[in-house]
């Protein structure tokens, strides 16, 4: 009969001896190196830290990827496009619109033109309005003859020309959200904030505090809300459940933005407010991922913010994330995918939206014209 005994060795410097002792089996003895700080973090150069994520599902080039949420989600879409993943632009600009104009009018930043969706409550509002589970808000902000959408006050530079234009544009956005939910393989949502502002009468949550991007602040009507774990989880669960009901094959990837708050209205220092906010969001993201096999959490937040990375991915203002940080995050994303699922097979690209030909591409004018001209002019 074979007996297995695990031995632990320790060097006793005082006596210059190697001590060997048997160790009893316990849950930690069978864990991999990644479970131990000394091996997985402490002994490594920060850029060697890896394996931070064990993805639940493979993100393939056959899945249409939708991105929404806080600013950091934009980095995801850019990195995915750069690697040939079919990022879904459900509210596209015409191809002849220049990159600068697209950015100015907020096209191609997220999969639809909601602008940043900072909170779970805002996500729930957008999803429920898009899926006709709640009515569009009547509230519209007017300023200097221009019209602003309280759900996305910064979406149209200078505001809309009329209420009708605002509503037509919002309808296009809602339609884009619907099609994005229905067509998405993976919905990437980046949680950004717990702090928000709402209308105390209607309960409508705003994208930003009235009087900042647009609108007029009214202390009697506008109320500050710092969402707590239970409320955020309820909103997130409701939004995700509504999306899943619309698209049963949907998978969701949650992230938390590592970008600190610009300002806090909580009455506490912005640094402690940031820690509170991000901790709450991180907890909700983790709990939500734990509860569903179709929801996963990718730790881009930790990759940027963990002390092991020494703040090296922040710009000098200690807020903006530098491009090297984004690259490192995405490198981890793809490496962790590959570690679990293997390399993506080549030649399995999804049927992407055909890229329109550049303006100078050959056209009928070019190729069917020689005889025409000779016929007309050569006499």
């Amino acid at each position, binding site marked *: 009969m074979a007996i297995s005994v695990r031995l632990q060795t320790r060097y006793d410097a005082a006596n210059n001896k190697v001590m060997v002792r048997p160790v009893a089996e316990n849950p930690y003895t069978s864990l991999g190196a990644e479970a131990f700080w000394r091996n997985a973090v402490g002994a490594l150069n920060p850029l060697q830290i890896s394996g931070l994520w064990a993805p639940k599902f493979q993100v393939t080039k056959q899945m249409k990827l939708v991105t929404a949420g806080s600013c950091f989600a934009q980095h995801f879409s850019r990195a995915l496009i750069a690697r040939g993943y079919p990022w879904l632009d*459900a*509210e*596209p*600009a*015409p*191809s*002849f*619109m*220049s990159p600068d*104009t697209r950015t*100015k*009018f907020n*096209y191609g930043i997220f999969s639809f*033109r909601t602008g940043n969706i900072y909170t779970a409550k805002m996500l729930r509002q957008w999803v429920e309005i898009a899926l006709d589970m709640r009515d569009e808000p009547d509230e519209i902000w007017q300023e200097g003859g221009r019209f602003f959408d309280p759900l996305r006050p910064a979406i*149209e*530079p*200078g505001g*809309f*020309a009329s209420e009708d*234009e605002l509503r*037509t*544009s919002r*309808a*296009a*956005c809602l339609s*884009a959200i619907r099609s994005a939910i229905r067509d998405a393989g993976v919905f990437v949502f980046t949680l950004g904030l717990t702090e928000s502002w709402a209308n105390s009468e209607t309960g409508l949550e705003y994208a930003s505090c009235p009087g900042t991007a647009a609108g007029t602040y009214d202390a009697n009507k506008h109320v500050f809300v710092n969402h707590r774990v239970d409320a955020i989880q309820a909103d997130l669960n409701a939004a995700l459940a509504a999306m899943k009901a619309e698209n049963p094959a949907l998978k969701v990837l949650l992230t938390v933005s590592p970008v600190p708050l610009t300002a806090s209205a909580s009455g506490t220092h912005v640094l402690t407010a940031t820690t509170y906010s991000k901790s709450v969001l991180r907890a909700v993201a983790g709990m939500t991922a734990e509860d569903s096999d179709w929801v996963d959490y990718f730790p881009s937040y930790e990759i940027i913010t963990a002390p092991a990375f020494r703040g090296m991915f922040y710009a000098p203002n200690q807020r903006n994330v530098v491009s090297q940080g984004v690259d490192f995050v995405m490198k981890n994303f793809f490496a962790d995918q590959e570690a679990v699922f293997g390399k993506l097979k080549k030649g399995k690209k999804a049927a992407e939206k*055909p890229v*329109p030909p550049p*303006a*100078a591409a*050959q*056209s*009928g*004018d*070019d*190729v*069917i*014209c*020689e*005889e*025409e*001209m*000779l*016929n*007309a*002019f*050569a006499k």
Partner: protein
Amino acid sequence: MPSQSEAAASDSLCIYGDSHVASVKLAWDQGLIDAQGRKVGFWGAAGPSFRGLRWKQGRIVADAGAQADLDLVRGDGPETLGAKDFGAYLFYGARLRLSEFLLELSAASYLSQAALEAATWEFMMSTRTYRFARNFAKAGAPVWFVPTSLPTQGVFPPKEEAAKVGIDLAPQEVERAFAMLRKLAAKDRVTMVIQPPETLTDEFLTRREFAVENADAARDVVHKSPEFAALMVAQVLDQMKNAKAA
């Protein structure tokens, strides 16, 4: 007092274009165009040679590779083209393609008026010939522009043209887009003349009756008949007449 040659030039019309200008020439030769006493000249080149026409020191000049094709069109007209060589200019077809414009808009999401204006401006300015037209107008020349017409109904297109058929826009959206083209061109003092509704089907194709001869055999959805060209040029000449009267 203008010199005799300047007076003659002031009453002349230059029709500038790519292969689409052929239909205008045929219409002219067939007597379908009443130029109202104006001297009419042609300038341009077809196919890839059209891209060999460039802006250089205030004039349009041809690359060496485009020279032969230009010579075919201009006949005894000027070797290079400036804003003062003719009394007025009509840029015809010339790669400002309505089908590309509308197809891209139909593939895109709703654009606010401000976004449509910005996008339309970029579309126009991305077309070299529009920049030529704008430069001529800036130099004081009366300028008209007839963009390339929409594909012809009922002609089976070759593969590269097939994707350009099928505009999914509401009529009011098409009119909004056309109005924006006219408005922005007017700001540049260029009069944009877009094919009239009676030449179009409900699917925003050019009616079959305006197909170029032999369109089916050549699978040519792009070019149009001399009758179509005559119709478009007549609009321009009427506008020129009215402008002069005013």
